[in-house]
């Protein structure tokens, strides 16, 4: 992470294969996978801190195997933190998550963390032999086990949803004995904010499709409960936010170019106008300065926070356009954001989590104990 505000800036991809509404052309899965990699490499090139990929198990999405993709990107980058948005804690075996992400953490030299989520596709539960009615319970039990597998060398465990474990050791052990940092992502479930608070993990609110008042409610709840569980003060909780932007030098050009993608976007297309949606949600379409102003205003809503991820590559935007967007983001927007977010940031607000800092803090704790 670059020094400055103690914040990390990056991008997160859904990995959708969507026709470009302006040309009618749909990329192949192969093209989209390669494009995601090119986008991640560009993120590193323009000085962003984080690349996160979604996890999906159905068309039109490609990223079914996140650690494979992230491992490949790790080998071709030096500084980028590899993460997910999100990893399905409900339908993946927590033992396999423990193994996969510990392996990624080793290969990436600590540049890996993970965001837990429940996904948004109902049928994914039966595809993996799970019951959607147990969604929250699966998230609770699976994560409780994962948390132990990364912290205890030998685990004996019994639960409701998985084969019991007798004297089981998940390998490889986490790099330097420090588990990958975990974010819990949720849009509308207070239970997940509560879970993040209980463990003292990070809470990521993917606010891109939702009004800010809702984001504030969820983050406030997480901060309150984080303090309740004794992990620190409310301002010491670790918060991440989503964001969605499209920029051109002149804001009219941005609006004109993005409108057909907005109007036909799989998630919100054929609904409100671009103008209505930008006024009601954090979507910002305009000049780099407008994006800077809007993003800085997030702090007024949720307080000083640690990670800002932008959705840049969806709705059929061609790779070339996305790479141009990343140039603008990395060169014109993020440097200003780093500087501005650093201003008036209380020293008591923690920096965004990195492996190095977590190792140092674990060693400090050991020193105190000894």
């Amino acid at each position, binding site marked *: 992470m670059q020094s400055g505000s103690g914040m990390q800036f990056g991008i997160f991809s859904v990995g959708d294969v969507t026709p470009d509404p302006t040309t009618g052309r749909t990329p192949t899965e192969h093209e989209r996978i390669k494009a995601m990699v090119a986008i991640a490499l560009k993120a590193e090139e323009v000085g962003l801190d984080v690349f996160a990929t979604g996890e999906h198990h159905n068309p039109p999405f490609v990223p079914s195997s996140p650690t494979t993709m992230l491992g490949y990107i790790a080998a071709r980058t030096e500084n980028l933190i590899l993460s997910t948005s999100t990893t399905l804690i409900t339908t993946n075996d927590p033992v396999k998550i423990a193994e996969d992400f510990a392996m990624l953490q080793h290969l990436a030299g600590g540049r890996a963390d993970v965001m837990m989520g429940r996904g948004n596709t109902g049928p994914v539960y039966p595809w993996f032999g799970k019951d959607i009615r147990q969604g929250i319970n699966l998230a609770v039990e699976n994560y409780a086990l994962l948390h132990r597998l990364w912290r205890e060398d030998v685990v004996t465990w019994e*639960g409701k949803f998985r084969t019991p474990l007798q004297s089981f050791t998940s390998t490889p052990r986490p790099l330097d004995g420090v588990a990958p940092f975990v974010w819990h992502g949720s849009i509308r479930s207070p239970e997940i904010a*509560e879970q993040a608070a209980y463990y003292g993990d990070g809470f990521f609110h993917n606010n891109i*499709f939702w009004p800010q008042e809702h984001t504030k409610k969820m983050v406030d*709840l997480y901060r309150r409960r984080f303090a309740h569980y004794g992990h620190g003060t409310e301002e010491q909780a670790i918060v991440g936010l989503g964001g969605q932007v499209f920029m051109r030098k002149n804001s009219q050009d941005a609006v004109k170019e993005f409108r057909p993608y907005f109007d036909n976007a799989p998630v919100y297309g054929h609904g409100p106008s671009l103008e209505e949606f930008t006024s009601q949600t954090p979507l910002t379409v305009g000049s780099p300065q407008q994006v800077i102003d809007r993003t800085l205003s997030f702090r007024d809503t949720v307080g000083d926070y640690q990670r800002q991820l932008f959705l840049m590559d969806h709705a059929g935007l061609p790779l070339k356009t996305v790479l141009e967007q990343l140039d603008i983001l990395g060169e014109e927007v993020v440097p200003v954001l780093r500087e501005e977010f650093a201003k008036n940031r209380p020293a008591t607000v923690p920096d965004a989590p990195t492996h190095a800092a977590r190792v140092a803090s674990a060693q400090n704790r050991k020193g105190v104990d000894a």
Partner: protein
Amino acid sequence: MKLVVVSAGLSVPSSTRLLADRLAAATGRRTDVEIETVELRDLAVEIAHNFVTGFPGPELSAAADAVKGADGLIVVTPVFSASYSGLFKSFFDVLTVLDKDAIAGTPVLIAATGGTPRHSLVLEHAMRPLFAYLRALVVPTAVYAASEDWGADGLDERIERAATELAELAGNMRHAPVREEELIPFEQQLAALRPE
């Protein structure tokens, strides 16, 4: 009491709104009411957008808050294709999709308008089950007004009877509690999953 009137009439002026206003006025003669009227016609576009985006726009959000905070509801729809109108149903769909208890326990007076009296049982066969499903408390008298009822004997009487029932039911209810976001402490969630 806070009385919220939901009218799904589409024309201006609308006989659905006319019936809604008369029911509200009759209720107001029996008890102190603070009346807020929600015209679904004005919210039609935001309701459609809510289906697409998953969240309510500002006007719809305000209307939803009003309905959730009501001590009593008067809901009136025109009859379309032997049922409540699609707009009427859509409003209660978006209202309850995020909060299934949005009007649970709220006293409700149901009413409908139509061109012919042959549709009057829409109230018993469509409206009453909908609000029973939403666990609202529907008053016994439902009011239907066909075109020919306006000016004829009988409608006034039914309006007065229904209004009396709503005023009494709402009066007997304690003020609707503001629903707090329920949160199960994490320890409790974990404990529930521990094998016996």
